[in-house]
């Protein structure tokens, strides 16, 4: 082929461009292969078609919107019914189309509809819905809850409650978990720094330590017990006469070894533990133990999925 070309060129069959550089330097004018040329013309024609099908040129105050269209199903805000709609091609219509008919999304939609109408008992008993809760709930939890409660729901000791144990500040029943998610929670304990004298706070701290077996009962803890259960401290109002906490107040159970505000198990010496408790009693808890309300951010169905997901993490009663 090459030889053939050379022959042709030397025979003068191929024209030159007509320039002569440096006296005798000339340039052949070989035509482009025909197939290549036609492809090139084809792309030019295609680009014109493209302008009309898809949004393209700006024109005055607006732009050519194209006559491509996309159809999708959305739920009508006024009636709540699903309706078919067709709209011009753009990325937002494409999203709506994707949301209404991607294969795994239709499956998801079906299950979502099922969860939306079911109550908690029905979901907990239904194997298929529970499978759905575990897979979708994991994503929802990871995105919304894991930042505080950890990816596995383990929480952060001393800061954010562990959701996998059976200790619940605000209750672990389905309705209570639901309430916590929807409305949020705001943990509160009054500051006793101005109410109690330092030595009284020492005594109360000592008593609280004995409740979970962190310290042995003694004289100090007896004095603390009186303050705890008497009018002076009044701790029993919220933590209960048995110190097991009152869930409607979000008051902690003090008789177990689970600590959610001060990370007591992490502290080594009894003195450190006592100091940490005393500090807590002094300052109380005010605006530092907030669970945000999720009702404006999550749909009722998402809340349901998350409530069941949290329950099945292992700890709910």
């Amino acid at each position, binding site marked *: 082929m090459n030889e053939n070309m050379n022959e042709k060129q030397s025979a003068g069959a191929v024209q030159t461009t007509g320039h002569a550089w440096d006296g005798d330097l000339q340039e052949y004018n070989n035509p482009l292969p025909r197939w290549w040329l036609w492809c090139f013309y084809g792309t030019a024609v295609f680009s014109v078609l493209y302008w009309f099908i898809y949004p393209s040129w*700006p024109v005055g105050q607006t732009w050519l919107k194209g006559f491509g269209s996309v159809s999708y199903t*959305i739920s009508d805000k006024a009636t709540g019914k699903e309706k078919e709609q067709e709209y011009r091609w*753009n990325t*937002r219509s494409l999203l709506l189309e*994707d949301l209404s008919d991607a294969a795994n999304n239709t499956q998801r939609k079906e299950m979502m509809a099922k969860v939306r109408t079911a109550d908690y008992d029905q979901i907990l008993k239904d194997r298929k819905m529970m499978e759905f809760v575990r897979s979708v709930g994991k994503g929802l939890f990871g995105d919304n809850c894991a*930042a*505080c409660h*950890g990816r596995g729901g383990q929480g952060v000791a001393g800061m954010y409650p562990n959701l996998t144990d059976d200790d619940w500040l605000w209750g672990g029943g389905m309705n209570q978990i639901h309430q916590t998610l929807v409305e949020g929670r705001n943990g509160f304990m009054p500051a006793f720094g101005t109410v109690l004298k330092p030595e009284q706070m020492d005594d109360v701290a000592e008593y609280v330590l004995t409740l979970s077996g962190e310290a042995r009962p003694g004289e100090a803890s007896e004095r603390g017990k009186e303050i705890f259960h008497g009018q002076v401290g009044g701790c029993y109002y919220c933590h209960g006469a048995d110190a097991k906490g009152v869930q409607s107040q979000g008051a902690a159970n003090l008789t177990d070894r689970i600590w959610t505000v001060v990370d007591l198990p992490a502290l080594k010496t009894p003195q450190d533990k006592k100091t940490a408790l005393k500090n807590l009693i002094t300052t109380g808890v005010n605006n*530092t133990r907030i669970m945000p309300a999720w009702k404006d951010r999550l749909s009722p169905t998402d809340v349901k999925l998350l409530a069941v997901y949290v329950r099945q993490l292992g700890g709910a009663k």
Partner: protein
Amino acid sequence: MRHEHIETNSALMLLLIMVVISIGGLVEIVPLFYINETIEKVDGVRPYTPLESRGRDIYVREGCYLCHSQQIRPFRDEWLRYGHYSLAAESQYDHPFQWGSKRTGPDLARVGGKYSNQWQVQHLKNPQSVVPQSIMPRYPWLLENDLDYADADTRMRALRVTGVPYSLTQIEYDANLKKYGKEIADQLDINQAQNSLLKQAREKNFDGLPERITEMEALVAYLQVLGTMVDFTKYDEGYFAQFR
């Protein structure tokens, strides 16, 4: 003009090359200055308050945009993870916008209200203490540095020049009053910038330190407002498609 003439005249060729290659850019950029149809008609979007605005400055100063975008794209996976896609209207008062495409960390366009103030403070101070697997660096100095808000009004003046409706005159104030109500109109008034900033900081106490106004205060105030201005439950699912 003959081809040879252009090829042998480098200044002319340079000029013509520049003309040709700038056409592509101009066709794409210029219409954006006068086509307003793409800005969605939507309620609730307002300029940042002085405190939020200072928080935004700190966001830019610390280079948060190097790892975090603020632009949720209209794709199903983003819709499911982050919520409604971002609107042009939502960043109309951002100069410059913080859209970005680098997502070493998650998108922050709708992070407002997602976590408590306390979590934000703790997380900025030491991210690994709440998210052990995080690779985000620590920003402990935000709690140590007091916020410099002496020039809050000057900064608002500068933004006003770019078209952000901060009010300087009574007429402008009245317009904001009508549009946003008194509380916000006061916040957007350049003449009382410092006072408004202090007022919001004291009321909300974003950093958990009642006696101090730290840089953390401003940054958390900013983060907590991101993506919260538009109430999407008010609009039909298909409504926003008409602006594209």
